[in-house]
């Protein structure tokens, strides 16, 4: 296993220690596997919490910060945190105005977060709502869109809901705009090489020396097809085609686009991808607003990339452009 670590069992806890030690101005860990904003809470502000497996930095933990999230429950690499940890996160994030649970649509996470919601409602009288990200168009057809996995689109939902909450909107309002952002996102990924989950010690999948998989998930979930690696522009054409088939955009539409590395793929190659993705959108007369290119939602050292489109209206655009601040993203 080619990873820099001390022991698979301490990977996540040492990572969180290091994160808080490096950025004490952003992150605090009031109890194990729970990260909240270092500055404490703003009374009356809706709390936004997320949670999920480790191994996706900056997702999920990294996006705790001003104009973004209030708390995050952290599981082992690619594994759900427990309902108890999620409940604890919600208790820390609640500032009297209720809590939005905003996270990716994965079976284990959903069951645990639902259970956590019931726990804090019963025991702590905390009102809470759920918005699930289900943006990966490769993971289910449009007729089963609710079964889709949540991937990089959650970055937009964090940003937009976070900005709304910062404006002291109510839980219903924050929930509504988070849902609107989630509904406006479509993502698709492609992978070139796997990553290694420390506790498993071996690669998440196997793939030939010159193969790529289109539509693969961020934990190595199977995609749509596997074939010889194609030229960048052809890959982008297919990705954009599948995104736009699911959410048509044309003259007069506005969107943001996130070209995201799964980890190993360098920014050089993301810019090659962006160059052509922009050409595709330009060709359709779609206006690009605040494009994002970088490592926003990763799978440790996996090679590959995802493209997310987030269709914007005036409200979403204003919230996307509102200030935010964490160790990984500042607007």
């Amino acid at each position, binding site marked *: 296993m080619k990873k820099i670590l001390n022991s698979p069992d301490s990977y996540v806890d040492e990572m969180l220690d290091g994160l808080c030690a490096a950025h004490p101005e952003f992150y605090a860990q009031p109890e194990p596997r729970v990260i909240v904003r270092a500055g404490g809470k703003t009374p009356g502000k809706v709390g936004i919490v997320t949670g999920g497996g480790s191994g996706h930095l900056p997702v999920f933990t990294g996006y705790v910060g001003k104009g973004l999230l209030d708390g995050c429950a952290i*599981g082992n690499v*690619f*594994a*759900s*945190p*427990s*309902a*108890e*940890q999620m409940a604890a996160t919600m208790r820390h994030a609640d500032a009297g105005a209720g809590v939005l649970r905003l996270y990716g649509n994965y*079976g*284990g996470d*959903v*069951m*645990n977060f*639902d*259970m956590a919601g019931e726990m804090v409602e019963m025991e702590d009288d905390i009102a809470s709502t759920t918005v699930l990200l289900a943006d990966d168009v490769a*993971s289910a057809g449009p007729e089963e869109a609710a*079964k889709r996995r949540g991937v990089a689109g959650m970055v937009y939902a964090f940003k937009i809901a976070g900005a709304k909450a910062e404006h002291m909107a109510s839980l219903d309002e924050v929930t509504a705009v988070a849902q609107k952002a989630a509904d406006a996102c479509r993502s698709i990924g492609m992978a070139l090489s796997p990553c290694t989950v420390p506790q*498993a010690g071996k690669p998440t999948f196997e793939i030939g020396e010159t193969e790529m998989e289109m539509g693969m*998930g961020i*934990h190595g*979930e*199977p995609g749509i097809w596997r074939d010889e690696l194609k030229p960048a522009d052809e890959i982008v054409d297919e990705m954009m085609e599948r995104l736009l088939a699911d959410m048509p955009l044309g003259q007069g539409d506005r969107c943001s686009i996130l070209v995201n590395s799964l980890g190993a793929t360098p920014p050089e190659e993301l810019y090659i991808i962006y160059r052509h993705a922009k050409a595709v959108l330009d060709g359709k007369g779609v206006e690009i607003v605040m494009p994002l290119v970088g490592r926003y939602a990763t799978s440790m050292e996996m090679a590959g990339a995802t493209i997310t489109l987030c269709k914007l209206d005036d409200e979403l655009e204003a919230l996307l452009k509102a200030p935010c601040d964490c160790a990984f993203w500042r607007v």
Partner: protein
Amino acid sequence: MAEFTTASLRAAAARIADHAEGVAAKLNEADGRLGDGDLGITVSKGWREIADNAEGLPDDLGKAFMECAKCFQRASSSSYGTLVATGFMSAAKACKGREAVPFSEVSGLLAGACEAMMARGKGNLGDKCVLDSMDAMARATAGLDEPAALQAAAEAAAAETVEAFKPQQNKLGRARMFGEKSAGIADPGQIAALEMVHALA
């Protein structure tokens, strides 16, 4: 009329925990074929946590089941762990305040757990998952009130479920992503259910 108590629960937990450790590798492998390969760890860790805390289980069966739920969930938060914990919670509600429960209620407890697990995981019968095992066991044990007969009926039903669903496609959880490839592969959660009742033979 035979009844079960917290003592029965303690004995069962010890037997399942031991058996689960023996079949953990096999369950991991089964889960690896349709998922992330952690099911053996989930089941063995969950039951070990209950067995390790068995001495302290209260006599109130409601509280004892609730404690089991917490143990299982604490030990593993993968889907199966949360579902098992959910089943325990449903039993906790049904047995609240009682120190002995007639074995004739087991069928109803299984059906109640199955329902709670459906609500928790948003799954349906026929999706090829542990719910189908729970439902089959609940139906097979209806009207029985003797431990050995209950176990035999439940095990037979769990075994039939694995075989009956094997040719079908998984419609739930990680395995759903495998689509057609999942046909012909036994559902790991159903195998785990079978192993758990088998441990009580």
